[in-house]
């Protein structure tokens, strides 16, 4: 069989596969919904995790800045300022 013939045979098989015996407009949307919903279900917790850890890091950074400021600034004097 020539290359062209085998290519046509393969593409013909693929075309009939995608036609789904005339039910392509029902079968493929069903599969699309299945995969899109599951992909969304997989991506959503990943995004939430990234956001959570980002917020937590920001909070920790603010805390450490506050700690440093408290450590470097002079401690409040215990004696009241003289008038």
């Amino acid at each position: 069989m020539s290359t062209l013939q085998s290519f046509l045979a393969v593409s013909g098989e693929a075309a009939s596969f995608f036609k789904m015996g005339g039910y392509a407009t029902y079968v493929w949307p069903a599969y699309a919904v299945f995969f899109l919903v599951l992909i969304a279900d997989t991506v959503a917790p990943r995004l939430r995790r990234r956001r959570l850890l980002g917020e937590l890091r920001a909070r920790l950074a603010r805390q450490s800045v506050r700690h440093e400021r408290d450590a470097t600034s002079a401690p409040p004097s215990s004696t009241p300022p003289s008038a």
Partner: protein
Amino acid sequence: MANWIPLWLHRLSSPPTFYRFAGTLLPWAMALAVLCGIIGLYGGLVLAPADYQQGDAYRIIFIHVPSAWMSMFIYAVMGVSAFIALVWRIKLAEVVAMESAPIGAAFTFITLVTGSLWGKPMWGTWWTWDARLTSELVLLFLYLGVIGLYHAFEDRRQGARAAAFLAIIGIINVPIVHFSVNWWNTLHQGSTVNIFGHSKISWDMLWPLLTMTLATKFYYAASLFRRARTDLLSLESGKDWVRRIAEGEADR
């Protein structure tokens, strides 16, 4: 707690231990889900012959039926862990129950949409208010109710307790969905696959269906692990082990 529960189960229910445990199993569960999915879909879409009555339209069965089984299976898992969460107040049981709800809702939604896409060419209608379809729609509303109630409270654990209560009450709907095709006259066909008896389906169609069922089971495990890990980070965000994870991932 009762002393018949093994010690390792106690340890596993501690959030940092479960976080690590789920993190180890997650990639394996996801890999098995993808592998089973590829094999099952190849068997179902390419190898299996067309149905003598329904032609190629029946091929929706390979996602519709596993999703429908998962919609009930996940509800059962959610109901049982909600019960454990209410009785023993185990934080991990709350997390498993509340993070199962969105996955269950996803599978219920898939079941309804793929069923509709199958019903149109076979029955001539997208939707009909019969027992099977209506009880499955009620199942979706129960999932959405659990999710909504959980998020309606300022205090997360209080919300989880209220939602767990709804989840337990709603469990009554699961046998109704399952037996609806026997109890009422319905447009929906009866069960095709019977675990304990003779299945009314040829092996060429049955093995892809069972492989897809395995794929959805593994997918649920992976998704639940991923969601539970994220939720534990959020619940325990003040704790040292979560801080270490946040700082460790900043380096990458």
